[in-house]
């Protein structure tokens, strides 16, 4: 396909997305479900791409996502809960006076600072997650595949226990969780943040570091022999992935308005794993696509499986609460067993790919897609 055609297609697509978002912004009340699905999709897309950076591109099977999201979410939430609401939120144990004083200072800050305060809070959340990752990365990254998985999973559980422990009652509000977290002031914001985060990660993947990550994924020993510092690159991938996971966690807190330690259980990590498996491990666009598809089907399209249905007076059997998730898990198993590459495999979205996909059934020619490394 010609380059100019691709350009036009790109511009058209972006324009369509922006138009859709502007339309939604103006029709908030009618499209509640669509908006919340899209927002959640965008947030999960960041986590999925970040997890993919680690699992798909560096080959480190980590299951600690929920924990890093929890750090980001709690940090952002603690920063953002307005002073007026603080006493209501911490009614059981009271709030740490330091935090309250800090909030009061912020309240009097100039308006430009107030305007970027939520973004700063998100970044700080990400930084905390990254710091923690750097700390635990030193011992944990020495471990091999499944030991690494179980150790990161363990850390995620430890974080959860710390957040909900009575010892930190005045900071995290213990196991009662935090609520009254202010949401996004504008619908477009989560999409812009998600776009920026994912773009940064794509740039990283295409840099020399990204190539080093892939070399580690393919063969650690060979990579080391080529002069790649294994620990440095693994640690880097782990820290960067955790940073974005933390940012997404903060966004999740702003999206949900109320969080508790239970939100960030192993099930959340599994949900994200599901997204990248369906999207294709090793494909950024696959993860993004997977995030939106999985969120939309789970929260919206497939809801009808949970309600008893009658079609032409015939009551469809099996349809009742919980059926949706069964369908979903079967779908996951089908993908894992028979369609292991997921939607995209390790390929990225490209107009050529789409073109070939449409063309292929008609011309029996074997297509050689660019960059389809396998």
């Amino acid at each position, binding site marked *: 396909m010609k380059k100019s055609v691709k350009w036009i297609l790109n511009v058209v697509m972006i324009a369509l997305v922006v138009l859709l978002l502007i339309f939604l912004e103006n029709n908030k*009340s*009618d*499209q*509640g*479900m*669509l908006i*919340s699905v899209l927002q959640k999709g965008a947030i999960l897309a960041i986590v999925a791409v970040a997890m993919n950076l680690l699992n798909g591109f560096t080959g480190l099977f980590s299951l600690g996502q929920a924990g890093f999201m929890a750090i980001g979410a709690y940090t952002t939430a603690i920063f953002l809960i307005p002073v007026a609401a603080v006493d*209501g939120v911490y*009614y*059981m144990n009271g709030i740490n006076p330091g935090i309250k004083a800090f909030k009061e200072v912020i309240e009097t800050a100039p308006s430009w600072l107030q305007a970027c305060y939520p973004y700063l809070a998100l970044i700080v959340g990400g930084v905390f997650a990254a710091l923690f990752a750097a700390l635990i990365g030193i011992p944990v990254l020495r471990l091999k595949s499944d030991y690494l998985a179980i150790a990161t999973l363990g850390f995620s559980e430890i974080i959860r226990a710390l957040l*909900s422990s*009575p010892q930190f009652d005045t900071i995290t509000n*213990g*196991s*009662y*969780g935090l*609520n*009254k977290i202010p949401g996004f002031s504008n619908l477009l914001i989560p999409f812009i943040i998600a776009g920026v985060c994912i773009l940064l990660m794509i740039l990283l993947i295409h840099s020399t570091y990204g190539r080093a990550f892939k070399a580690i994924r393919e063969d650690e020993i060979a990579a080391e022999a080529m002069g790649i510092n294994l620990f440095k690159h693994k640690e880097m991938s782990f820290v960067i992935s955790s940073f974005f996971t933390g940012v997404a966690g903060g966004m999740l807190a702003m999206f*949900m*308005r*109320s*969080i*508790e*330690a*239970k*939100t960030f259980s192993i099930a959340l990590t599994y949900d994200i794993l599901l997204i990248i498996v369906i999207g294709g491990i090793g494909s950024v666009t696959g993860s993004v696509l997977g995030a939106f*598809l999985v969120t*939309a*089907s789970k*929260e*919206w*399209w*497939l*809801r*009808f499986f949970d309600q008893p249905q009658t079609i032409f007076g015939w009551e469809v059997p099996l349809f009742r*609460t919980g059926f949706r998730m069964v369908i979903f898990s079967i779908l996951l198993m089908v993908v894992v067993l028979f*369609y292991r590459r997921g*939607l995209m495999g390790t390929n990225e979205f490209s107009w050529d790919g789409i073109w070939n996909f449409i063309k*292929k*059934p008609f011309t029996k020619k074997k297509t050689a897609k660019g960059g389809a490394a396998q």
Partner: protein
Amino acid sequence: MKRILAIVLAMVLALGLMAGCGDSSNGNDASAPAADNGASASDAPADDGAASSDKVIKIGVFEPITGENGGGGFQEVLGVRYANQVVPTVDIGGETYSIELVEVDNKSDKTEAVTAAQSLMSSGVAVVLGSYGSGVSIAAGEIFAENQIPAIGCSCTNPQVTLGNDFYFRVCFLDPFQGTVMANYASQEGATKAAVITQLGDDYSSGLGNFFLKAFKELGGEIVAEEQFQTNQTDFKAILTNIKAAEPDVIFAPSSIATAPLLIKQARELGITAKIMAGDTWENATIIENAGEDAEGIVISTFFDENDSANTTAADFVKGFKEFLNATPDYLSKNGGDGVAAVSALGYDAYMAAIEAIKAADSTDPVAIRDALKTVELNGVTGSITFDENGDANKDMAFIKTVEGGEFKFLKTVTISE
């Protein structure tokens, strides 16, 4: 092969999308009348136009059907469903509106509660009823207030539910009151040493436990042990062993229905003979069923007694509700027999309060209904109901019950004036 699979999958998803859109457009049509009178509502759930011929007003039912409080939540839903059967329509501005219940399951989980509340908001309800369990109500309260939809809590007893929330009301009494009632009862029975077991992270349990603790100390009693357990914990032996060593006269353990039989049985297994007391949640037949003989002698406080003959509204309700239960075997089995739970009565009362408010407002506008709620006076099943400035029902009476011979037996009523 894979290509065909991919195409089929894509088609299925596309179909799903259409189905989803179809649903949402239906939802808009149905809620369109709600905005016709929407004079002041800025966030009225639908746009003007396309008024359909049969007028419908939607009432959201925000209850746990699954999760640890699923059993009690369902009893509350039953009360609401029965009320809907009794009063299926309401007259607004000279026109008859039929009332449609929109039920969502908050799964006894604070995170799910927010999602469930959001889906209620997008389905365009005018009033929300619920929930059983204070934690989920607190979590969702913000969403209701932000969308300016009034909510009427049925059995969420924690003060935080309505405090600082202009849109939350409730028809039951509060935990400070309930805690005091139980502490008074315990000390009247001669108890001087009490142990308190609460569930970490559960607003209802820790709140009520705290209020009991304060009240019991003020009455001169001594708290000999304070233990906490985690949600979904099923092994209480370690904390019960500690309690046994402290030798209390009574154990106050406000907790969920699912926890109750485990706690009771394990306590008796360890040879603890102290009287076990709890709050309103424990008034559920499945506890007796699961704990068997060990449940004998537990003491609870609750909102309502089905054998209370003084109140004619209540007598009618009990009669009608039993017929309602017996008509559907599924309801009967989930309710654990045809006993009338207090939460069902509260569900009924909340529904009636909503109807009264809609009538008084003479409008489907949520804000007008909220304003009307403040002045509603209702002779309910659980006593007369008016709301104070916080939105709490002015109630000053609790019923104390005990388990005897495998069923709940009424002991006495306790009134505390402030």
